[in-house]
């Protein structure tokens, strides 16, 4: 089975190259979707051995992930893995994510930060926010309460599942949208424990608490789109 890793990249110079190099031995191909970066990180990814496709305008993480997913499926991927460009995700998690699919036990596998493996450097405020997000996901979006991580960015899916999930949120709300679409379908979904490493650098660039409101707003607008 061909496993393609899809990484959205926006100005991750100094980090993206190492992520690509770490992933390459573990997957068939690494597709980096450069989302309009201006810092030369696309070249860094290419030099590290990634297949780079470029968005001429910055369209957001969700949009970049979708481009990479569409491309991976079109180019023969059997399994698509979504991965972050900033080095927070552990490349060792790739087999953990893909094994349930390769063994035919699941169609979609979500990496969870709350299944026993402790994430490194996760701030308490983030933990609290994610607990609130879990309640929101259950009540408003109908995502089962058994789902432990409502904003996980690390996931794997079969090509057929990727086509069925068909997410359209361009920015941060894609995590919730993918979860909702996956659990609302007949697809077999499982969660596996993964470790995330937070550093001061990635926390500064990553999501902030105020982004929670933006995500809710984006989901509301998305609910009215045909």
């Amino acid at each position, binding site marked *: 089975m061909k496993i393609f890793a899809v990484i959205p990249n926006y100005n991750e110079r100094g980090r993206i190259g190492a992520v690509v190099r770490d992933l390459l031995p573990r997957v068939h191909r690494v597709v980096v*979707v450069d989302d309009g970066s201006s810092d030369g990180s696309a070249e860094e990814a290419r030099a590290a051995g990634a297949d780079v*496709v470029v*968005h001429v*305008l910055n369209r957001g993480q969700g949009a970049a992930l979708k*481009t990479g997913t569409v491309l991976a499926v079109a180019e023969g991927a059997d399994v698509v893995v979504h991965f972050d460009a900033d080095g927070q995700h552990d490349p060792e998690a790739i087999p953990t994510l893909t094994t349930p699919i390769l063994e035919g036990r699941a169609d979609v596998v979500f990496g969870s930060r709350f299944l026993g493996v402790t994430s490194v450097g996760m701030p308490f405020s983030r933990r609290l926010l994610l607990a609130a997000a879990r309640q929101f996901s259950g009540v408003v979006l109908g995502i089962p309460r058994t789902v432990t991580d409502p904003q996980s960015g690390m996931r794997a899916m079969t090509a057929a599942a990727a086509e069925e999930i068909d997410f359209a949120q*361009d920015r941060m709300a894609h995590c919730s949208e993918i979860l909702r679409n996956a659990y609302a379908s007949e697809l077999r979904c499982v969660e596996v424990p993964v470790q995330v490493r937070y550093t001061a650098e990635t926390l500064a660039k990553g999501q902030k608490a105020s982004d929670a409101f933006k995500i809710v707003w984006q989901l509301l*607008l998305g609910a009215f789109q045909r």
Partner: protein
Amino acid sequence: MLIQVILVAIFAVALALTWKRASQGTVPRRDAFLWSSLWIGAAVLVLRPEVATLFAGMLGVGRGVDAVIYLSVIALFALVFRLFLRLEKMERDISSLVRTVSIAQRTEGRAQEKK
């Protein structure tokens, strides 16, 4: 009163313009009816302000002017939300376009590499 004449004239022009656009097909007929009811309603309120008081009584709001303000705020909220929805649709269309361009560029690049 002069203000009544000016406002009614503005509403009449807006009504005429709405139906001109509807006949050109740039405004859907359903929207044209909605806008027309808004213009005609506004003109009635300007010419007969006591209608607003009557309406306010029906809603349980004290003064006619208050009822008009409340309804205007609700209408404005609805219009702004519609604008947001349009913007979101436009954003998604742009993303779709950017996606198509990026995949086409890559395919083109690969074809050139093979040559």
